[in-house]
């Protein structure tokens, strides 16, 4: 029985809350009548920068978008970008950014930058085998350029560029902290401090994320095939994938005037997904860290001259302990031997990247905006080590060494290598008529190992009418051969080739950006691309069982993306996109596989009252062909539905509570395993799961 006093207290709390809401609404209404919209309030109060679009097909995802998506990890944000699908690798469930049909097992076709600095490792051309993504709490916005970006960004800006912009001291402007927890024993906590007063910019951020990982089950694996062939019963399948992860991220920034010093640390530990050899490995672990420190000087040094210089140092390590095949595997019948403790290896790779880049904007010529840049990058894979309990016979079959031996100097998978890249670029935007501008740019890169590459771009932008902009774009991009593709050795399966040259891609785009009504924004992009000299591992002549990297691939594709954003009412916004692509391997005249032909994404941002927002979203992935030679049936399409609710109580300013249900209809969604088909049922994605979140800003 509720007492009278309690009832009065409850009534007064409710009345107070209600009155507060009404008051806030009346104040907001008055301010809205002057400013026009909340977006304009944010711009006018300097909380957000208006988005200035590059002459490219770009998507900008803001911090607000990230909250509406309910994303916890970067991959969840990127999945909403038209034309970009984040698939998963069987190794560590590392993300594979698949853009417009361009898929690579090692995720080397998209350039990922943090504040403009590449996160790339030269070993595989990706972010490292022990990376598994990054949390989003320190992200202010993400800019994704679809299509080539090498004319400005150089290497690896091949299928697209993802630039993650972290929060500045001014963006934080105080202290924020939060905690999150949910399914799969996921725990997450973060804190940020930012102060941009008194001429100094001071920022500190730390975030810790841990999860046991989802419980997706692989029904059969590579060892299952060996068991069937050899009469053994070693396979751990059916068994759960190991997506356990611990992530620690920290950033420290100090700025004064034109100087900004930033340092970032990422520490990663985690399971190996299915396993390095597509055999379940619940014990396998990857550990890695990356340090990135940069010093930037940015100033308008003279009239019309804006100068920026950045020196950076990136130190990254990947250490692994892997069971390629489980305890009980026995390859005696194939000329190998028995492995009562499993086939075990510890391959470690360490890299350092030192960069210096100077760029300048010059606007002194009438109707021209010019940008110049030059720099040097030393990529040094300074240490590689390996311990293992096997060697491979000429047919690639594991033979026991009798114990775990250090083979770093005798029989390593790769030895240390380095390369120096020097580059120069020039870009000019020429406004040759009131509604026309032509951007022409070219970048020259010299690699100490394979030589030169020149990558041009052209962008013709036509302000067709008040509400329509049309862009015609051409660009060439390159991906340099990775150290793995150049120098792999002692590996009967895949061998490096030091004679490789970079693979290139030419892309043509036609883009329309229209605002048919004040509340509607839409865009349509059409593209055609042609890849040359794509690096593939081609089988060597018999009797060898190995494959060697060759510039043998050619692929072309076309497609388009349609985007829509509709402010249906003051409290309701609809955002969505549809992407289509068709790609063909010129060698096989078949779909190269893996990437979805159709991709649809839609989200509602509904604010029934100012303190509550509701964000349902759906993502539809369809028509993923199998690669040539993979005889499995096509992988099933899937629809994943998420729902995020955010509550900001009017009476407790600064507090925010959120709950998010992911894959709420428990769709059995899967990403394709490799074309070997050794994991016949593909890679399961998480089923229905939840999290709850609490954050506070002082």
């Amino acid at each position, binding site marked *: 029985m509720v007492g009278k006093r309690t009832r009065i207290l409850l009534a007064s709390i409710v009345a107070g809350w209600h009155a507060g809401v009404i008051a806030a609404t009346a104040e907001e209404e008055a301010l809205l009548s002057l400013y026009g919209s909340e977006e304009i309030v944010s711009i006018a109060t300097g909380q957000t920068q*208006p988005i200035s679009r590059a002459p490219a097909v770009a998507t900008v995802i803001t911090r607000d978008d990230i909250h509406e998506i309910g994303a916890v990890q970067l991959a969840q944000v990127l999945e909403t970008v038209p034309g970009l699908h984040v698939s998963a690798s069987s190794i560590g469930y590392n993300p594979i950014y698949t853009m417009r049909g361009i898929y690579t097992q090692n995720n080397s076709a998209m350039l990922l930058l943090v504040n403009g600095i590449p996160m790339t490792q030269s070993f595989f051309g990706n972010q490292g085998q022990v990376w598994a993504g990054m949390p989003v709490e320190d992200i202010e916005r993400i800019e994704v350029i679809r299509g080539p970006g090498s004319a400005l960004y150089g290497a690896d800006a091949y299928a697209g560029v993802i630039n993650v912009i972290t929060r500045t001291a001014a963006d934080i402007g105080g202290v924020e902290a939060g905690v999150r927890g949910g399914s799969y024993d996921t725990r997450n906590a973060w804190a940020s401090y930012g102060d941009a007063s008194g001429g100094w910019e001071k920022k500190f951020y730390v975030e810790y994320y841990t999860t046991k990982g989802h419980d997706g089950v692989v029904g059969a694996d590579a060892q299952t095939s060996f068991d069937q062939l050899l009469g053994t019963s070693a396979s751990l399948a059916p068994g759960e994938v190991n997506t356990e992860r611990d992530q620690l991220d920290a950033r420290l920034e100090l700025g004064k005037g034109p100087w900004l010093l930033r340092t970032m640390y990422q520490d990663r530990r985690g399971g190996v997904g299915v396993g390095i050899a597509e055999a379940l490995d619940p014990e396998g672990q990857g550990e890695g860290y990356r340090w990135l420190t940069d010093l930037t000087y940015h100033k308008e040094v003279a009239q019309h001259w804006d100068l920026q210089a950045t020196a950076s140092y990136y130190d990254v390590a990947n250490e692994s302990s892997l069971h390629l095949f489980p305890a009980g595997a026995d390859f005696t019948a194939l000329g190998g031997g028995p492995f009562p403790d499993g086939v075990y290896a510890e391959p470690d790779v360490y890299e350092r990247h030192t960069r210096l880049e100077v760029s300048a904007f010059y606007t002194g010529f009438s109707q021209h905006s010019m940008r110049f840049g030059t720099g040097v990058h030393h990529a040094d894979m300074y240490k590689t080590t390996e311990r293992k309990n096997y060697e491979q016979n000429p047919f690639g079959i594991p033979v026991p060494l009798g114990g775990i031996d250090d083979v770093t100097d005798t029989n390593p998978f790769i030895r240390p290598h380095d390369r120096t890249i020097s580059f120069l670029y020039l870009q000019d935007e020429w406004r040759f008529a009131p509604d026309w501008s032509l951007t022409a740019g070219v970048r020259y890169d010299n690699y100490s190992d394979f030589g030169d590459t020149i990558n041009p771009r052209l962008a013709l932008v036509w*302000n067709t009418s008040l509400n329509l902009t049309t862009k015609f774009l051409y660009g060439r991009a390159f991906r340099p051969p990775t150290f793995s593709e150049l120098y792999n050795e002692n590996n009967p399966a895949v061998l490096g080739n030091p004679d490789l040259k970079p693979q290139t891609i030419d892309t043509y785009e036609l883009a329309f950006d229209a605002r048919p009504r004040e509340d509607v924004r839409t865009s349509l992009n059409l593209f055609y691309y042609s890849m040359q000299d794509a690096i593939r591992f081609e089988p060597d002549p018999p009797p060898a069982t190995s494959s060697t990297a060759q510039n043998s691939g050619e692929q072309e594709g076309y497609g388009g993306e349609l985007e829509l954003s509709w402010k249906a009412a003051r409290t309701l916004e609809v955002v969505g996109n549809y992407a289509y692509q068709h790609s063909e391997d010129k060698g096989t005249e078949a779909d190269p596989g893996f990437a979805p032909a159709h991709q649809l994404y839609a989200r509602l941002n509904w604010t029934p009252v100012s303190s509550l927002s509701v964000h349902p979203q759906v993502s539809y992935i369809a028509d993923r062909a199998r690669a040539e030679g993979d005889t499995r049936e096509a992988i099933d399409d899937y629809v994943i539905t998420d729902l995020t609710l955010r509550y900001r109580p009017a009476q407790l300013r600064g507090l925010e509570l959120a709950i998010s249900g992911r894959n709420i209809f428990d769709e059995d969604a899967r990403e394709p395993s490799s074309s070997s088909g050794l994991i016949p049922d593909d890679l399961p994605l998480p089923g229905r799961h939840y999290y709850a979140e609490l954050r506070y800003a002082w």
Partner: protein
Amino acid sequence: MAHATARAVISNIRRTLLAIVGLMCLYAPLTLAADNRVGVVYPDIREPYLSIFTAIVSGVRQASFDEVETLAVTTETTAEDVRRWRDQKGLAGVVMLGRHGTELAQALKDDVPLVIGAVTLSPGLRETRLPGIALDPDPNAIFRTIKKVTPNVKRVAVVFNESSSGWLIERASEAARSHGLELIPAPSANLSEALRQYKTLLNGGLSKDGALWLLSDRNVLDSKTILPYILQEAWDENVLVVSSSVEHVKRGALMAVYPDNVGLGTSLGKMLKAQLSGKGKAGGRDALIMLLDTKVAVNLRTAKHLGLSSLRDRQSEIDTVIDPH
């Protein structure tokens, strides 16, 4: 004896003078401290709106007060609550921000030196006779911006409604003259008349050195129908459009002025300071002034379309560049 009496009198006078000086010395810092201790009342509101008020508060602090206390209010907050807070903190005066702040100010105006701010002009607001600064930009701010950013403009046309904006046009005519501009007022009694006026102005009614100034007045500008028409015609006919709404800039107008909230806070602080020192207005019909602390937003796409390449040399005059496509 007379000598002794004189000495005693002189001594008394000296003692009295010393006492007075002493008292003055004791009292002066107190008076000084009280005058330099003010408060800001602002609405308890969520972001992004809260940032408007935090910027104003930081501006008030820059008006060289020793201490600035703040109080976030809801509709539950009464004038008595504010009075009590003022007494507790020993505040010499208060800056009252927002709609509810203005309502409270009406109840407090006879007891507390105050100024109001961060409110939009409404017919009833001037009648309150409260001193302060509205959020609506003063025509002087508009014309100052036009002269700075687009110096080739000589004439500014404006469609207005006599009953709702007549007073503003009177003021604007003077302001235009003082900036070397000619104001061309186009009166209209209702929306359809306003549309006719816009049609005339946009289809040859404006000379090459003319600009169109859009008033944020629902009697002459409807955002769903008339605004899209104006922006389309202005694009087609290369007419320069100036507004006091950044939203209009986002949709294609060339430029707009919008509140510089830190500057507004400083101006409010100075206004309160003047009042406390007996130099400023404590009320009256002209005590509420329009905003002169403004920033400029420019639509870069429209600027390029209009061939305003000279904007490149005036980047320091522009606070926000919007490039919507």
